[in-house]
């Protein structure tokens, strides 16, 4: 049996000395699975994702990422685990001082990849997301949808084993949102485990994936529903190199 990519056991979380925002969270993400994380605004979706992409400590419980107990894993090991996780932030979090190409290349540079390989793959990814003409542009000159695509390209350039997206369709119209979901499905077919937080119920209804539902900090798991007919067909991304710590 293959080990879970993510496993939470009785996890609680609080910010500082505030009240607990997540209570007794238990779930597992199997390798290659695709899950939606749903729930109303303020339910704790972003907080749960922060725990998944190792930005925050749980206040209690156990978190296993790629089989590593985060509480006992050596601190110097965590950057290597983080490099196996691609994150698409709700507010994009692109660095305005860097060009689009430099933003996309950032994870590979941090991982210490060869500069020529980095440029090659960053260019390919930007062409794939339709931003080949904006490589030298600064993020501040892009539209919300374009920034979203840059953020996605940055998240996947490292060929992550796990892709976490926080409201990736929150800033785009329905048509673009569906196309983005196709794109995530293509990545999933290539073996990437996907976890997408959204409060867009109609979008969730169109795709056949199980749902982790959060309400008032408590999690329930819902089985997938039949997919919307024709919800397939986005082009596959160009292959990016597996780098230090990246999934093969």
């Amino acid at each position, binding site marked *: 049996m293959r080990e879970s990519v993510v496993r939470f056991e009785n996890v609680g979380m609080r910010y500082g000395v505030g009240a607990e925002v997540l209570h007794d969270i238990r779930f597992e993400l199997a390798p290659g699975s695709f899950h939606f994380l749903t729930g109303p605004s303020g339910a704790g979706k972003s907080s749960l994702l922060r725990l998944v992409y190792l930005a925050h400590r749980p206040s209690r419980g156990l978190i296993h990422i790629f089989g590593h107990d985060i509480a006992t894993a050596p601190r110097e090991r965590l950057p290597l685990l*983080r490099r196996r996780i691609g994150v698409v932030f709700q507010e994009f979090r692109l660095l305005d001082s*860097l060009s689009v190409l430099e933003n996309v290349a950032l994870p590979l*540079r*941090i991982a210490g990849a060869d500069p020529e390989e980095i440029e090659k793959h960053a260019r390919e990814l930007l062409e794939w997301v339709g931003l080949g003409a904006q490589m030298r542009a600064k993020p501040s000159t892009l539209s919300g949808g374009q920034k979203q695509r840059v953020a996605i390209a940055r998240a996947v350039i490292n060929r992550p084993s796990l892709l976490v997206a926080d409201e990736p369709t929150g800033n785009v119209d329905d048509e673009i949102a569906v196309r983005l979901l196709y794109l995530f499905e293509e990545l999933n077919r290539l073996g990437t485990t996907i976890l997408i937080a959204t409060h867009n119920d109609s979008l969730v209804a169109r795709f056949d994936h199980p749902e982790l539902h959060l309400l008032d900090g408590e999690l329930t798991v819902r089985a997938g529903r039949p997919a919307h007919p024709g919800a397939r067909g986005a082009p596959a991304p160009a292959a990016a190199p597996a780098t230090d710590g990246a999934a093969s």
Partner: protein
Amino acid sequence: MRLGGTIGARLGRKRPPLPLAEDPGRKFVPWLIALVVFLAALALAGLMALADIAATWDRGLIGTLTVQVPDNSRADAAGRAAQAKRVDVAVAALKATQGVASVRVLEAKETAALLEPWLGGGAYVASLPLPSIVDVQLEVGTHINVAGLTELLAAQVPGTTVDDHRRWTDRLVTILRAIEALAAVVVALVALAAVGTIVFATRSALAVHAETIELLHIIGAEDEAIAASFAQQALGLGLRGGLIGLIGAVVAGSGIAFAFARLPAGLMPSVALTPLEVAALALVPLTVAAIAALTARATVMASLKRML
């Protein structure tokens, strides 16, 4: 254009891309550091110069002695001849003393001129039994045993005294030592202010770049790499500011030294910083820059340690 040539330079393996230079607040940091280094270098130079002067006076190496040969003879030709003979004996003894560069007997009218502020310029002064004054110049760096010399001279010419100006140099040395201690406190306070300035500037930069740091952290940058980036920036800012401050201090110090050099000879001993002291001054901006880098690194590391 190759990526390696663009972000390659900015995103080097040992230099993650932290756009600290674009933080408007950090433009002022080099000037703050320049001011700190300027004050520190001047205070340190003053401290070292004061220490040198005090040491010179303390060792009695101001370079001159004043010997008085009392005139106990009658005011007639025989008496003057006897006094001249006594002076010749004293001069001969002084010239035979090791470390004495030159000996000059002041003429009677020169002695009278010395007393003029107190006794006036009347002709009667010449009739007073004034001692003969012998001005003795010592060789540079010579240490004279004043007590021994006095004893030697008094044995040959009874009543002869030697004045190495110790009475008033002692008071000056005391004052100088107090100023020296004050300057040392100033140097210490300036050093503290430098550390405070850097800590404040670094924390401000951290506040501005907190999201960037967290992003790099989440993407998988190692703590050391992020901290090194901040430290490198702080080092650059510190060196730039330190150089400006040191140049300012050298210009100001040279001006002060020039003013001192114009004082009448003998009023102040000449002070030239030794190569070691010059090296210590050159170390001020380097030290401040190193403090900046280490503080930046420690501050960033502490911040990162609070994250998972």
